[in-house]
């Protein structure tokens, strides 16, 4: 019988995507639907003296205009994670209003919504809204935001800190170890701000039905249930059972569509006001200005080594921008998703990270592909490579010297880090060894020496990352400040004909769940993949869901489905036993049928399904039906790891970096669909390369964004990237039923330091030790001149 797990099965969802038949929010057109446009502040920090909508109200097609003075002005979107100050002071959490009323806190903040019959009319009328602003000084750099006298983002507090935080060993102990270390390497840099740039911009339709008193919100979100919960309970105070949130197809998120944004709450409120559906779709400029950004850490770090090159201590201080308001998961990103990875794959005995998280006059910063782990990995992997160069040790050797020894989490216990987490299983030697083989590392070093003699600048960079995925055990995250659980829901409904509908709280916005989930459900039930349908993205279909981010769909969402599959098989066995007139314990299930062990007596999954719904001859006391829903709360995070190696050539005249090769050996645990895993790794690598070489959100001193279009914000393109060479080792996760770890973010985490290490390696003989990201030709050339 055909099985599916582990096979490169083509994605079933691609047929509709390739034909332009996806069901994206902006494709939906409802009867009597209106359109909307926002009036947004051109200033980063300003007093709003007045808003005059008189002319706009007279414009053709205008249905309604609302400002912060209307009752919607009292509502704000909440933050979903609380990190209090080290001294016990509660996290400073400003109201994030649906429309700014008196004060502007970042460029692009909305002051009014114009609703009209057509989009063109809404845009035209929005141009007629007159806003009188008084511009004020702004601060956009997180370190400068904490300097005395910096402009305050929120005047109710004496400085711009939202919270501060630390993790690891006692600071004095770490400092003492650094003081007595044989060698200490140091770095100061900014992990630059990035814009997520999903292909599909954010899009919402709010539809209030006057007759039923129910709302439907169509939204391009990564987690429909969480949006519904926040919207109902924490923003508008409307009944959750009267709200349906739908997000069928979503064109990429990379984190930016996790959060509950002001626009979707405002549309939901306004739809009831006007009694008609309202659509808003962000344009690209609005996306740059209003989608939550990623990264933006200002970092100062020291790492100490002993004579043998073993790391003895690591101390880091960071300023991590929050933006003007706290986005849904923002406080978790530079703290629990970041500091908890400071162990890396190394046995570092003493670690201390201190974080200050200031408000800045910018759009919010939140999780962006990797969310805190890329920042941790970049720091660790740059520091190790920098120290290796300075101590004249090969960077691969220095890593081997410091790796945590292999452990499978079953026969050997998990690895307890200095920063709270316990790794599940790992074999860090294995991925580096394989990565070096794939590259032909020793041969490359010879080639590099020859090239250098002829004036060619070739470099190789290694990164050996670990990340925490599969978020997360609810009780653990609850103790760390999460205001929600992080389990997942999976329901399996067997139809009378034995066909299977699976409902998941995970959300697919490019991941391929419809294919992968069907692969393992079909295998576990021993039925054809065509008999399994995966449904997601509709709060009316599945009990609840926490959505997709943190590479959690398969390890958490998949496990919830497995739990339901197990319940189906358990109940099915009772029915089968009755039909076969045998004891349950005498049955075995394989290839879609229950067989009495040692006989040819069997009954098929289809027959049992039909019996469950037509229970004429049925076990006594057993309920009819074959339909189960399960909540799965993981017992630990999962910890994928890998080695990424980049080879670059630098143009000595211009500083332009060409990526010549990219080798990735990842360990994501068991693999359900290797084609999809390769695709996830490759896509992530490209985003990681984008951060290393191209991408940067730049705000000037006054808070204007200088990189708010594709003319100014450089995205990686196909011709920037060589063929990405992928391979894997497999170290199963010991604590979930599929043994999977997650692959969605690995590429973006591992790639960035590999590329930067390679460029620095290419220029090391010129005395270059570091270059600020992105490594634009100008920055590289200037580094070469110094």
């Amino acid at each position, binding site marked *: 019988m055909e099985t599916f797990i582990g096979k490169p099965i083509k994605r079933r969802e691609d047929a509709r995507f390739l034909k332009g038949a996806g069901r994206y929010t902006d494709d939906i057109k409802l009867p009597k639907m209106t359109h909307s446009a926002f009036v947004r502040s051109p200033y980063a920090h300003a007093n709003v003296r007045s808003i005059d909508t008189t002319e706009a109200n007279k414009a053709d097609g205008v249905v309604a205009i609302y400002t912060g003075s209307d009752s919607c002005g009292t509502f704000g979107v909440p933050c979903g994670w609380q990190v209090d100050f080290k001294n016990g002071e509660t996290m400073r959490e400003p109201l994030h209003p649906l429309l700014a009323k008196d004060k502007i806190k970042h460029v692009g903040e909305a002051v009014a919504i114009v609703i009209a019959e057509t989009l*063109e009319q809404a845009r*035209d009328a929005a141009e007629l809204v007159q806003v009188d602003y008084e511009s004020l000084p702004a601060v956009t750099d997180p370190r400068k935001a904490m300097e005395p006298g910096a402009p305050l983002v929120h005047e109710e507090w004496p400085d711009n800190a939202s919270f501060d935080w630390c993790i690891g060993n006692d600071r004095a102990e770490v400092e003492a170890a650094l003081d007595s270390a044989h060698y200490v390497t140091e770095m100061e840099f900014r992990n630059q701000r990035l814009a997520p740039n999903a292909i599909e911009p954010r899009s919402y339709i709010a539809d209030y039905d006057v007759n039923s008193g129910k709302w439907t919100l169509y939204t391009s979100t990564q987690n429909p249930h969480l949006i519904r919960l926040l919207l109902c309970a924490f923003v508008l105070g409307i009944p959750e059972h009267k709200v349906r949130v739908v997000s069928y197809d979503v064109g990429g998120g990379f984190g930016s569509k996790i959060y509950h944004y002001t626009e979707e709450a405002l549309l939901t409120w306004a739809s009831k006001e006007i009694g008609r559906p309202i659509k808003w779709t962000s344009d*690209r400029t609005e996306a740059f200005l209003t989608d939550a950004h990623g990264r933006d850490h200002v970092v100062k770090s020291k790492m100490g080594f002993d004579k043998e090159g073993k790391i003895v201590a690591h101390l880091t201080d960071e300023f991590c921008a929050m933006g003007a308001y706290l986005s849904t998961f923002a406080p978790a990103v530079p703290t629990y998703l970041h500091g908890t990875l400071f162990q890396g794959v190394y046995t570092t005995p003493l670690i201390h990270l201190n974080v200050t998280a200031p408000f800045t006059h910018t759009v919010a910063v939140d999780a962006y592909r990797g969310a805190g782990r890329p920042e941790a990995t970049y720091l660790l992997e740059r520091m190790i490579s920098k120290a290796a160069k300075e101590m004249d040790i090969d960077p691969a050797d220095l890593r081997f010297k410091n790796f945590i020894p292999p452990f499978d989490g079953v026969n050997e216990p998990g690895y307890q880090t200095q920063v709270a987490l316990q790794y599940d299983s790992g074999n860090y030697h294995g991925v580096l060894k394989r990565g070096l083989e794939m590259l032909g590392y020793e041969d490359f070093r010879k080639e590099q020496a020859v090239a250098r003699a002829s004036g060619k600048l070739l470099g190789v960079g290694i990164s050996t990352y670990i990340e925490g995925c599969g978020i997360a055990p609810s009780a653990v995250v609850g103790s760390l400040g999460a205001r929600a659980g992080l389990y997942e829901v999976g329901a399996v409904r067997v139809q009378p004909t034995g066909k299977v509908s699976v409902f998941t709280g995970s959300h697919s916005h490019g991941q391929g769940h419809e294919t992968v989930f069907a692969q393992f459900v079909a295998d576990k039930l021993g039925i054809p993949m065509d008999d399994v349908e995966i449904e997601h993205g509709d709060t009316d279909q599945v009990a609840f869901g926490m959505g997709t981010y943190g590479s959690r769909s398969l390890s958490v969402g998949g496990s919830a489905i497995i739990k339901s599959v197990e319940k189906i098989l358990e109940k099915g066995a009772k029915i089968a036993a009755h039909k076969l007139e045998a004891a349950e314990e005498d049955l075995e299930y394989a290839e879609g049928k229950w067989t009495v062990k040692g006989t040819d007596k069997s009954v098929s999954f289809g027959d049992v399904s039909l019996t469950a719904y037509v229970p004429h001859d049925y076990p006594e006391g057993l309920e009819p039906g074959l339909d189960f829903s399960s909540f799965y709360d993981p017992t630990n995070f999962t910890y994928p790891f890998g080695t990424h190696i980049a080879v670059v050539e630098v143009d000595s005249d*211009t500083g332009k970096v060409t990526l010549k090769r990219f080798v990735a050996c990842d360990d994501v645990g068991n693999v359900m669909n290797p084609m999809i895993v390769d695709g996830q790794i490759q896509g992530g690598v490209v985003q990681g390369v984008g951060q290393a070489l191209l991408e940067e959100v730049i705000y000037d001193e006054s808070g204007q964004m200088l990189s708010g279009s*594709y*003319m*100014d914000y*450089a995205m990686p393109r196909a011709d920037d990237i060589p063929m990405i060479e992928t391979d894997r080792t497999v170290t199963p996760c010991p604590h979930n039923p599929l043994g999977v770890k997650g692959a969605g973010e690995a590429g973006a985490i591992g790639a960035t330091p590999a590329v930067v290490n390679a460029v620095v390696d290419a220029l090391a003989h010129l005395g270059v030790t570091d270059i600020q990201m992105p490594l634009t030709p*100008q920055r590289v050339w200037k580094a070469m001149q110094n």
Partner: protein
Amino acid sequence: MIPAKFDYIKAATVGEAINLLEEHGFDAKIVSGGHSLIPAMKLRLATPEMLIDIRGIEGMNTITEEGNEIVIGANCTHHELTVNALVNNHVNVLSQAAKCIGDIQVRNRGTLGGSLAHADPASDYPATVLACEATIVAQGKNGSRTITAIDFFQGLFTTALEEGEIITAVRFPKVANGTYQKFFQSASRFAVVGVAAVKDGDRVKVGVTGVAGVPYRATAVENAYDGSSACAAHAVEGVDDVMSDHFADEEYRSHLAKVYVKRALEAL
């Protein structure tokens, strides 16, 4: 990305287009490929009330050989310039520049005349037009005139075209040996520096785009040319408005100009 309301009319002849321009004055804009104007309109940076489409005008998309010149209709697309045999054989430097513009979609729509009239200081054609000493043929209500390349580019997005004038063609003298070398801006892929060099007997003619507010002839390079590329050191001599942005400040851009003039001279 929704433009303000505008009217649209398709002109059948150059004369009709000129009359329409006169009739609508400042409220009207000529559109051909639309690859500079339409993006500006979608961002509402340009809000013309009337678009006069000259794309369909007969005779404005031909490429002909007239004695020692190749005459290229203003409506010819970038793509046409990359594949046309006359252009490839006689003004190859122009084909090379056209190949560097945008992507396939842009090259299929954007036109030579539209790009020159828009006069983006980082666009590719000006360097080539300058180095080739091409002449721009402009028609207005008082008839047709030619404008030398050196006179044509006057400032950022500013040309010698007078109100009511339309570029109908560009006349390129045949060039036996020319090259276009470009350093791409990583986001827009416009030219941070674009250098066209043309061999003229023992001399060279060098046009530079992307570096200054106005594309220029690198006369200091031309005067110092001795058959080697050493004269590239003079690439920005006399240029007092080297542009600066987050991709290339004045120092780096000036350096790149020298590198790319050198590369162009060495490619001849």
